[in-house]
């Protein structure tokens, strides 16, 4: 009777079965939605021999370097690190819902304001007990970077890399240029390079973040580390005369930057340095990735951003630091603590750097014997720094930097004359964003 009701309302059974299958599918889908939003938290809750770890290291080189660390840890302690790797952009975009759902016990993250933000929201566990054992491995600046606003530790740093001005040794030799340490020398060098037919400073801001780095350097050289921190935390005003001064200094060297920066990626800008068309380039050490030719790479060198105000000298270094945090209620807290203690050892850092030589140790106790000349210099620069800053979007609220600062600085690069209205617009927007939570 199921098959042949006259009204045709009841369906033949094979169809009904497919229908039910569809309902089953929808039910699975329905159950899948919360799973998805929770970013697939691992279900190994009760296993005391396992610590889960959420990782944003999706590129092959860092992924393998991290895996080597976890393998070494398993050998040492018998504890399995169950890694849940996600594409790094996706990881960052979803971090919010990830940490609120069922996050892994430990997760990879950045030092600085971004770490403090989640710590202040109660989405991370303080790890003062971890730092009791690993504290001696790190310099004072790293201690400062790993604390939340409440003074407790929340972060274990693994590696770091500095921002500096890169140049070709052969070009400087050939033209008789000298590394500038003072602002005036730097401006004079730019002028000379322009006369010599070089692009003085390579520049690409299509991705909108490289300009943030230029601003950081000028700002903390001119106004000092403390002002940088206050400005980034939304405490200092963007209409302050100090900020205006930083922009004036920037406007002074802007004519020596490569033309059309907003349409160029940093990779393309790096190519102009590699092909010796540009004299200098301000970027992180990852610029070396673009020097695929060994001879070119050996020719690459860098110097710290020149001094602007003698009161601050060159004592601040912009050194974004990556590491680990513990989620708010780890399922296996005892083992997670032990894992973090291991990750804070020089051994763990050594293993990482063996596979990824583009960065340097965060610890001062790690083995630097295999460093390249660039790495050695980067390491010295960081360990000699009085204060370390993170990149602007790690030192400030990312929503502020991405929705306000990135477009604002792109605007400034093209139209440095409109700086006054730009700064008051930044300040107005900043107030509402920082007031919102």
């Amino acid at each position, binding site marked *: 009777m199921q098959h042949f*009701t006259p009204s045709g309302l009841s369906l033949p059974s094979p169809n009904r079965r497919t229908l039910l299958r569809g309902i089953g599918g*929808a039910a699975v889908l329905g159950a899948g939605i919360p799973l998805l939003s929770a970013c697939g938290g691992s279900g190994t809750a009760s296993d005391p021999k396992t610590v889960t770890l959420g990782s944003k290291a999706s590129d092959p080189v860092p992924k393998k370097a991290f895996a080597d660390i976890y393998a070494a840890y398993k050998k040492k302690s018998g504890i399995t690190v169950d890694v849940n790797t996600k594409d790094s952009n996706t990881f960052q*975009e979803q971090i919010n819902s990830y940490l609120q759902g069922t996050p892994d016990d430990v997760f990879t993250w950045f030092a600085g304001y971004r770490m403090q933000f989640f710590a202040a929201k109660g989405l991370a566990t303080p790890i003062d007990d971890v730092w009791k054992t690993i504290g001696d491995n790190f310099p004072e600046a790293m201690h400062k970077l790993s604390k939340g606003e409440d003074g407790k530790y929340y972060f274990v740093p693994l590696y770091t890399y500095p921002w500096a001005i890169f140049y070709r040794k052969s070009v400087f030799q050939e033209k008789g240029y000298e590394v500038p340490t003072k602002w005036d020398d730097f401006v004079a060098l730019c002028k000379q390079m322009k006369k010599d037919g070089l692009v003085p400073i390579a520049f690409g801001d299509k991705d*909108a973040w490289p300009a943030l780095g230029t601003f950081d350097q000028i700002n903390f050289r001119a106004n000092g580390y403390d002002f940088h921190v206050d400005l980034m935390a939304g405490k200092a005003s963007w209409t302050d005369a100090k900020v205006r001064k930083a922009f004036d200094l920037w406007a002074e060297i802007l004519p020596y930057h490569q033309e059309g920066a907003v349409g160029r990626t940093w990779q*393309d800008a790096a190519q102009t340095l590699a092909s010796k068309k540009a004299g200098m380039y301000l970027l992180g050490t990852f610029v070396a990735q673009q020097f695929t030719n060994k001879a070119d790479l050996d020719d690459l060198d860098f110097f710290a951003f020149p001094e602007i105000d003698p009161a601050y000298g060159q004592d601040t270094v912009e050194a974004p630091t990556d590491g680990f945090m513990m989620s708010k209620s780890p399922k296996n807290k005892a083992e997670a603590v032990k894992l973090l203690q291991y990750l804070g050892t020089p051994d763990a850092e050594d293993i990482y750097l063996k596979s990824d030589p583009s960065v340097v140790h965060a610890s001062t106790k790690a083995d630097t014997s295999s460093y390249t000349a660039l790495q050695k210099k980067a390491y010295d620069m960081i360990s000699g720094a009085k204060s370390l800053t993170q990149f602007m979007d790690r030192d400030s609220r990312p929503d502020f930097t991405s929705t306000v600062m990135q477009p604002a600085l792109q605007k400034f690069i093209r139209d440095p004359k409109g700086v006054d209205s730009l700064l008051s617009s930044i300040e107005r927007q900043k107030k509402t964003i920082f007031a919102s939570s």
Partner: protein
Amino acid sequence: MTTDITKENPEAAAVPPSGAAPAENAKKVPQGHRRLLTRRDRITLGFMAGLPTILHIALVWVTALASIALAFTTWDGIGFDSIKWVGLQNFKELFEQNPQFWPAVQHNVIWFVVLIVIPTPLGLFLAVQLDKKIRFSRVYQTAFFLPVVLSMAVIGFVWQLIYNPDTGLINSIIGANEPGKYIDWIGDPDLNLWAILVAASWRHTGYMMILYLAGLKGVDPSLREASSLDGANEWQTFKNVIFPTLRPTNTVVLVVTIIEALRAFDLVFVFNKGAEGTELLSILVTNNIIGESSRIGYGSAIAVVLLLISLVVIIPYLVATFRKERRA
């Protein structure tokens, strides 16, 4: 899934054996509808109608209404207790302080106007030519339609190879990648929107062509015959006979183009992430909502503005359509 099916099989087999049943059923049919639907039928029907309804309400209406409600709050997406009512604050901020908002609205409008003025007539022109059954018609048709098959993101990558100011095709050919003569197709706010619109039009032309070609295939050939018997030339035939019969197609074209203009996103996002000169409402929504510390309330306010603009366009269309149906 397989377990579900196996579970289902015995049940299906447990349906009362046929034989007496159909006869009984047939007897009872005239007595009323009720007996037509067994309990199982009603459950099945309930599922068929209920489940899609629930899904639709949950995924379309609840989310849309929630987003409207969130537009009057600030929320960083962390815990429900951090939702704070702020009234019209987000909108005030949007209209008065956000330097990207008004350019974005303007660019969405420009996007629509350009798509209507350039690729649409071009697509119609190509369709009319192809409709004449010229030789290699299929080849042309494929060539023009090909961009429509590509995803917008891919189109964005392809056109970047052309527009790249340092190594791109155009600047390399005309020598505009040197200092002094530099043309920054992607970064210059006076150029980049138009550069992107060329890419968007390139795709839209093929789309329009296919729609009009379908419309033209539906035109009664006897109309053409009649007009040529009346001594009309080709242009007169098109203007007075063919084009008026394309009216339903024109409506579809208009709707499709409005949708394309409002949902414009992927091409620009790949091209330069909506930097100055190419801001779009959809990109502002994304930038504010997706991220580590999201401004969900503020982003929702922008989305509500986008929704209102869509309604302004859609409501008159729906009213006109319903009126027509009522008349019919």
